């Protein structure tokens, strides 16, 4: 009985959290499920309210100012060089030693914002007792992904503003927050989508961009091949014309979301079998609300959640339980999360899922107590392992099946090898196996760790063991 609880405690940490930190297994072994559920009861546990982090509008404005400044500096420099080239030769010799090589000004403002947001995010994951809610944040952030390659200054703010407040709230609220966020509107081009028959469309002869509408249907809600048509995509795109961004250069509300009626396609539209009268901004909200309540969306989300936490081919009973809870609760994500950790299938299923790189490196950091002054080491590691932070290869986000991540095993070995060398505390590797894996450790892994030729090698083997790699 005691053994079972220890086992479940370790499983709770590895499957639903970021792995043990300190004596976490012992701490939650009294009631592992209760410990997970207790995280859901902590008010605002998902929020990051750090006054030092800029809101997305502010960040967009600051990034705009920064680019203007850099541009002006470059122009000034060029003019300066042209002057020097024309000046007599003796003044040339007296000039600064390397006029053609300006000092490296360091990371630009967008990168600074990205790094600060990354640090806030990883600090939260590193410090969490278990990290179940934080894992949900990561799940939803990947489900509704944007790319920092396109929206670097506000990629982190997007997660804080659109994902975190709703991660235990209603799916429909998160959906609306996401699709009306400047980061998403820019990432999937809707900010520039203009209704052909809108005032702006008639004046400028510009038109529709279907990108966001298609991805909402295919990726964010119903799921691919769930019966919607090209007409649904086009009509939905028309519905959300006018969902745009106040230009960041504007002193008032620059960088904020705006509904611009001059860009909005007039008229009623039919999307997925429902008719929507033209009520301006409300028209799009109505479509999103219906999509959020669509049974296909419930199936889509239930499958993805179960696949993420439990197995590539999740147990059908678990998916059913999640789907029916999603529908019955009108998309209450806290209740869905409760069902996820209460269902027997979520605990009985073999640990076959490979942890994703970010999850693995956070778990490794927690397990060993290695620290860093900033997020750069983790960011660099994730770049190497193919999961660069907030930079998925496509709007679909990072893959969530084993096949996608197995190839990175050799790179993980490089990282683990280096990681082991960074642990300076005099840890006893055998004790570390107990606190990190506990009952999950196989006799073979215990033996391999205790027989390692160095402490760094013992730690690397522990971090590379199947029990640590899989959730």
């Amino acid at each position, binding site marked *: 009985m005691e053994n079972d609880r220890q086992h479940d405690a370790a499983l709770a940490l590895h499957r639903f959290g970021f792995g043990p930190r300190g004596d976490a297994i012992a701490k939650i072994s009294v009631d592992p499920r209760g410990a997970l559920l207790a995280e859901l009861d902590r008010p605002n546990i998902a929020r990051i309210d750090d006054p030092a982090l800029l809101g997305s509008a502010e960040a967009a404005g600051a990034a705009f100012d920064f680019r203007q400044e850099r541009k002006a500096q470059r122009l000034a420099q060029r003019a300066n060089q042209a002057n020097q080239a024309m000046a007599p030769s003796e003044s040339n010799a007296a000039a600064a030693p390397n006029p053609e090589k300006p000092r490296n000004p360091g990371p630009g403002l967008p990168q600074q914002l990205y790094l600060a947001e990354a640090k806030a995010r990883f600090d939260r994951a590193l410090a969490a007792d278990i990290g179940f809610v934080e894992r949900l944040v990561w799940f939803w952030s990947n489900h509704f992904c944007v790319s920092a390659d396109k929206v670097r200054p506000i990629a982190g703010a997007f997660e804080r503003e659109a994902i975190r407040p709703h991660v235990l709230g209603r799916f429909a609220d998160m959906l609306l927050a996401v699709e009306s966020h400047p980061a998403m509107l820019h990432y999937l081009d809707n900010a520039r989508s203009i209704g052909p028959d809108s005032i702006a469309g008639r004046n400028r002869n510009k038109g529709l961009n279907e990108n966001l509408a298609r991805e909402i249907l295919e990726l964010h809600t119903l799921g691919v091949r769930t019966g919607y048509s090209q007409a649904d995509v086009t009509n939905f795109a028309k519905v959300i014309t006018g969902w745009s961004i106040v230009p960041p250069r504007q002193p008032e509300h620059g960088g904020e979301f705006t509904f611009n009626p001059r860009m909005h396609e007039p008229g009623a539209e039919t999307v997925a079998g429902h008719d929507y009268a033209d009520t301006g901004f409300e028209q799009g909200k109505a479509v999103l609300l219906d999509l959020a309540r669509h049974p296909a969306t419930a199936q889509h989300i239930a499958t993805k959640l179960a696949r993420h936490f439990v197995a590539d081919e999740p147990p059908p009973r678990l998916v059913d339980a999640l789907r029916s809870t999603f529908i019955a609760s009108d998309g209450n994500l806290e209740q869905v999360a409760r069902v996820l950790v209460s269902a027997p299938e979520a605990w009985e299923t073999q640990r076959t899922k490979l942890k994703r790189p970010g999850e693995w490196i956070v778990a490794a950091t927690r397990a060993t107590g*290695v620290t860093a002054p900033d997020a750069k080491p983790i960011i660099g590691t994730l770049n190497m392992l193919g999961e660069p932070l907030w930079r998925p290869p496509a709007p679909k986000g990072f893959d969530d099946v084993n096949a996608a991540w197995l190839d990175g095993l050799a790179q993980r070995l490089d990282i683990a090898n280096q990681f082991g060398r*960074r642990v300076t505390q005099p840890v006893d590797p055998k004790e570390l196996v107990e606190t990190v894996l506990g009952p999950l450790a196989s006799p073979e892994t215990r033996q391999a760790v205790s027989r390692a030729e*160095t402490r760094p090698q013992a730690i690397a083997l522990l971090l590379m063991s199947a029990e640590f790699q899989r959730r």
Partner: protein
Amino acid sequence: MATNLHAKESFMSACSDRRTGGHFAGTCATRRQVLFSSGVLFAWSCLPKLARAEGRDPRLLVMVLRGALDGLAAVAPVGDSEWVRLRGDKALGLTRGPQGAPAALPLDGFFALNPAMPNLHRMYRAGHATIVHAVASPYRERSHFDGQDVLESGLTRPGSVESGWLNRALASLEPAGAVNPKAREGFAVGPVTPLVVRGAAPVMSWTPPRLPPPTDDMVMRLLDLYRHTDPALARVLEERMNLAAIARAGGMDQPEKPAQPPQPGAPQLPGAAQRKYFADSAGAAASFLARPDGPRIGALSFDGWDTHADEGAANGRLANLLGALDGALAAVETNMGPAWRDTVVAVITEFGRTARINGTEGTDHGTATIALLAGGAVKGGRVIADWPGLRDADLYQQRDLKPTTDLRAVLKGVLRDHVRVDDKVLARAVFPDSADVKAMGGLVG
């Protein structure tokens, strides 16, 4: 002074990321010419003043081989009649062995050097290398972790990891020059610092711009673990690490088949990567030690010596490792330039291995092994051994080469006669409770 400051700035800028505690995975900016290994050089403030007063400018580089080197396979007692009985066809000999194993390199009629170490052999013949055999630290158990603690801490028991003997030795030296206290703050004691140099004396440390490759041994251990616990991961690792190539490079399969030259675009063989890593690390350390105003004392560690299976002393894994070590010694000699004549490189390991071959063509954890001294300052061309013999009754616990020389005596001899650390300090602070272990004289000079 100016160049000196410049050197410090290089270290500081390269290691600035690590000053607040350090992390993993290449946190250091890259400065190729400086930074190749996880190792440490002592700050110039600890220049040995006494030695300088004698007109010498000694350099000491300590290489720690982690994993326990099989001293009998590195320096074989070919003149002992029990040798072949013990090791059978794995016994190195002065003639070519089975499967084309090359002959060992003769040293003094009784001992012969592993054929993978021609550079060390050349140094030995030039009188610039000494081997001390049947040597061991005071540690008598067989745990790597504890054995390394004892080896590097200089204490008699495991468990203390606050400071290492090399650091305490340096801390005892009178500084030879004025030190700018502000500049000293810049020296980061890196988190990868080997225990042997950790402590109060300021050190500079550096980490490689690229990750050191996992050793073949590490890959084999992980693969073995996966084979028993997770066949899917084992399959992936086998494919990814191109294990056929590792096995070929390590002589672990089909030794009769000539090794294929790497195809263009093919991944670099780990064996070759390891060789390069050893040479780059040691060479980079030597470049700094060689500078007139550079540091004088340093330490490096190389992993991978825990050869439980398929040891390959003559033409396999251990031969590759010893070849890499040989390359590292040659790189030190080359990069030291004229300073080689003031140099001692000391190569030490936590313990030795079983005298007999085990059931998997390897050797298990043992006791006595060798220590190597190389460099122009070494009074070399000798194997120093109070040879215990290899009959069953001669072996320690009837399984290991019996230790007859205390490693601390060797290290004390080097520290006293080369760097001029005081005898009393050696007995009290550097190797506490070692008053009865007399420094071995005549190793340098």
